[in-house]
C-alpha cells in the first residue's frame, strides 16, 4: 500500500516537472503589460470571487435551517472544484485556440503556454494569468448559481459529479461560443459580462435539474419559508458589491467602458429593486425586504449582458422591466407550472438573463460604445435577431446537455437523498453538522431520527 502511494507520488511529481519544464521561454516580442489595467482586473477578480460566498448567504438564508449548511457547502465546493478544473482543463476548452467555432483546443491544457505576459488574443494589456483568473471567477459563480434550483434535496456526491461535468460540458463551450472566438461571438452576439453565458446557462440548467429530480418533500403541504432573511440581505449586498467587478471588470481595462458598466450596473440594480417592490406593494399591500433584494439581483442579472453597451437611462428602463417580469415568474408562473425551483435560480437568473440579453438587442447603442452595435431602439435590426438566436441556442444547449448529464449521473449515483435524509435535513444527514447546534435542543432527536 505504502509502496503504491510512493510510486503514485513520484509519478505525479514527474508529471508536474514535465509540465513546468515546458513553460514557454520568454517571448522576444513581449507585449507591454499595463499596470493600471492589471491592478484593476486583479481587484475585479477578487470582487467576482466574493460573489460566490455572497451567494452562499443569499441562498443560505432562503432555505430551512436544517439545510443551510448544505447549500453553503455546495457554493464552497464549487469554488474549490471549478478552480482546479479551470487550471487543468476548463480554461483551454473555453479560451484555447478555436476548434470549429464550437470549443477551444487543448493548447492551454494545465495552463501550458500561459504566462505572466499578455495573450495576443485576449485582453492584451494584462498578463494572461490575470485573464485566466478573472474568467475563472465567472465559471465559479455560474456553477454555484444552479444550486438554488435543487436546494434542500440533492445528494452531495451527485452534486460534485454534476458540477464537474456541467462546467466542462456546458459552461466551457458556451463561454467559448461567446467570448472565446466561437460562433455566437462571430455572429456579433453581444454579451458584455455573461447574460447568456452565466445567467441563462445556469438558470435553464437549474430548471432542468429541478424538473428532473422533482419537488421537495411536502412542497405542497408544508409551510416552507426562508429561515434567515438577514442572511439573504447580506448575501445580496455581497452580490451587488461583487457585481461591480463582474461587469466593470468585463471591460478588461480600467477605462471609460468600465466606468459606464459600473454606473449602469448600479442603476439597473436600483431600478430592479424599485420595480419589484412596487409590483408586490400593489399586488399584496406590503413592500418586503425579500422583494427588494430579489429585485436588485434581477436588475443586476438583466444589466449583465448590456453593461458595456447601454446608457444609464436605458439601464433605468431595463430595471423597471425586469422586476415585474421576474416577480410574475416566481410568484405566479412557477406555481402554475408546478415545478419546484427552490430558490428561483431560473426565475431570477434564467428569466432575468433572458430579459437582459433581449434588452441588449433593443437598447445597445454605438453612441455609447462604438465597439458595440445598435439595438432596435437605435435602428439596428440585425443585433436583436442575433440576441434571440444566442438566447435560444443557450436554452437548447444548456437544457439538453444538463438533461443528458442527469440521466448518466443517475445511473451511477441517486441524485436525491432518501426521504428520511431529506426530512432530517441535509446538514445532519449529508454533512454531519448542525448550523445552530446550541440553539436547537432537538439536535439529538434529529440524529436519533437518522438511525431509524
Amino acid at each position: 500500500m505504502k509502496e503504491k502511494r510512493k510510486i503514485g507520488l513520484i509519478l505525479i511529481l514527474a508529471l508536474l516537472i514535465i509540465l513546468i519544464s515546458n513553460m514557454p521561454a520568454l517571448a522576444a516580442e513581449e507585449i507591454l503589460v499595463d499596470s493600471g489595467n492589471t491592478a484593476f482586473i486583479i481587484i475585479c477578480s477578487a470582487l467576482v470571487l466574493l460573489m460566490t460566498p455572497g451567494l452562499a448567504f443569499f441562498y443560505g438564508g432562503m432555505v430551512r435551517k436544517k439545510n443551510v449548511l448544505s447549500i453553503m457547502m455546495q457554493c464552497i465546493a464549487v469554488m474549490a472544484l471549478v478552480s482546479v478544473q479551470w487550471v487543468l482543463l476548463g480554461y483551454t476548452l473555453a479560451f484555447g485556440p478555436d476548434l470549429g467555432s464550437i470549443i477551444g483546443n487543448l493548447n492551454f491544457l494545465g495552463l501550458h503556454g500561459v504566462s505572466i505576459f499578455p495573450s495576443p488574443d485576449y485582453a492584451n494589456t494584462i498578463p494572461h494569468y490575470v485573464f485566466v483568473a478573472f474568467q475563472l471567477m465567472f465559471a465559479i459563480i455560474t456553477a454555484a448559481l444552479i444550486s438554488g434550483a435543487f436546494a434542500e434535496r440533492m445528494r452531495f456526491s451527485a452534486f460534485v459529479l454534476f458540477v464537474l461535468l456541467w462546467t466542462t460540458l456546458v459552461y466551457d463551450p458556451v463561454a467559448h461560443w461567446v467570448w472565446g472566438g466561437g460562433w455566437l461571438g462571430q455572429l456579433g452576439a453581444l454579451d458584455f459580462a455573461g447574460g447568456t453565458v452565466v445567467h441563462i446557462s445556469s438558470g435553464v440548467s437549474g430548471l432542468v435539474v429541478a424538473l428532473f429530480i422533482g419537488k421537495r418533500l411536502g412542497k405542497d403541504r408544508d409551510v416552507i419559508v426562508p429561515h434567515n432573511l438577514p442572511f439573504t440581505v447580506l448575501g445580496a449586498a455581497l452580490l451587488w458589491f461583487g457585481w461591480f467587478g463582474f461587469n466593470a471588470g468585463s471591460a478588461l481595462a480600467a477605462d471609460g467602458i468600465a466606468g459606464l458598466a459600473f454606473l449602469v450596473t448600479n442603476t439597473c440594480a436600483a431600478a430592479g429593486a424599485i420595480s419589484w417592490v412596487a409590483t408586490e406593494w400593489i399586488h399584496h399591500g406590503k413592500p418586503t425586504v425579500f422583494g427588494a433584494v430579489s429585485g436588485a439581483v434581477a436588475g443586476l442579472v438583466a444589466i449583465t449582458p448590456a453593461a458595456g453597451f447601454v446608457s444609464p437611462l436605458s439601464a433605468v428602463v431595463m430595471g423597471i422591466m425586469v422586476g415585474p417580469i421576474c416577480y410574475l415568474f416566481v410568484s405566479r408562473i412557477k406555481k402554475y407550472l408546478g415545478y419546484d425551483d427552490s430558490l428561483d435560480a431560473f426565475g431570477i437568473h434564467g428569466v432575468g438573463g433572458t430579459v437582459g440579453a433581449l434588452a441588449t438587442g433593443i437598447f445597445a447603442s454605438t453612441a455609447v460604445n462604438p465597439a458595440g452595435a445598435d439595438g432596435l431602439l437605435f435602428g439596428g435590426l440585425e443585433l436583436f435577431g442575433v440576441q434571440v438566436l444566442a438566447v435560444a441556442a443557450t436554452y437548447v444547449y444548456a437544457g439538453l446537455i444538463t438533461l443528458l448529464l442527469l440521466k448518466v449521473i443517475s445511473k451511477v449515483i441517486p441524485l436525491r437523498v432518501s426521504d428520511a435524509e431529506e426530512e432530517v435535513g441535509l446538514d445532519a444527514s449529508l454533512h454531519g453538522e448542525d448550523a445552530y447546534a446550541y440553539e436547537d435542543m432537538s439536535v439529538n432527536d434529529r440524529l436519533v431520527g437518522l438511525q431509524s
Partner: protein
Amino acid sequence: MKKIEAIIRPIKLEELKAALNELEVRGMTVYNVMGRGLQKDIKQYYRGQEVSVDLFPKVKIEIVSPDDAVDKIVQRIQEVCRTGQIGDGKIFIYPVENIIRIRTREQGEKAL
C-alpha cells in the same frame, strides 16, 4: 396548591413580572410558545408566494402557588394582560399534588 398557566402576549411579560413581584410572587417558569385560538390567520408573501401564518408567538408563564393566593394572582394577570382585543390569551388552573425541592428534599408548600 395550584399551578397557574397563563398564555399571554409576549409584550406583556415584563409588566406582568413586575406586577407579580408586588404580590411577592417570584418563582415562575416562562416559555416561548406558538399557538392559536380566535385570532385570524395572517397572510404573508415570500417572493409573491402566499404563506398563511396561523400560529402566533405567545409567552407561557407557569406559577405554582398556595391555594389562598391563587385568586389574587389570577386577578393580577388579567389586569395586566387584558387589552380587550382578540389574542389576549388564556389562564389555566390545575391542582398540584406535591412539590419537591431537589436541593433540600423539602416537600409541599415549603418547597415553593
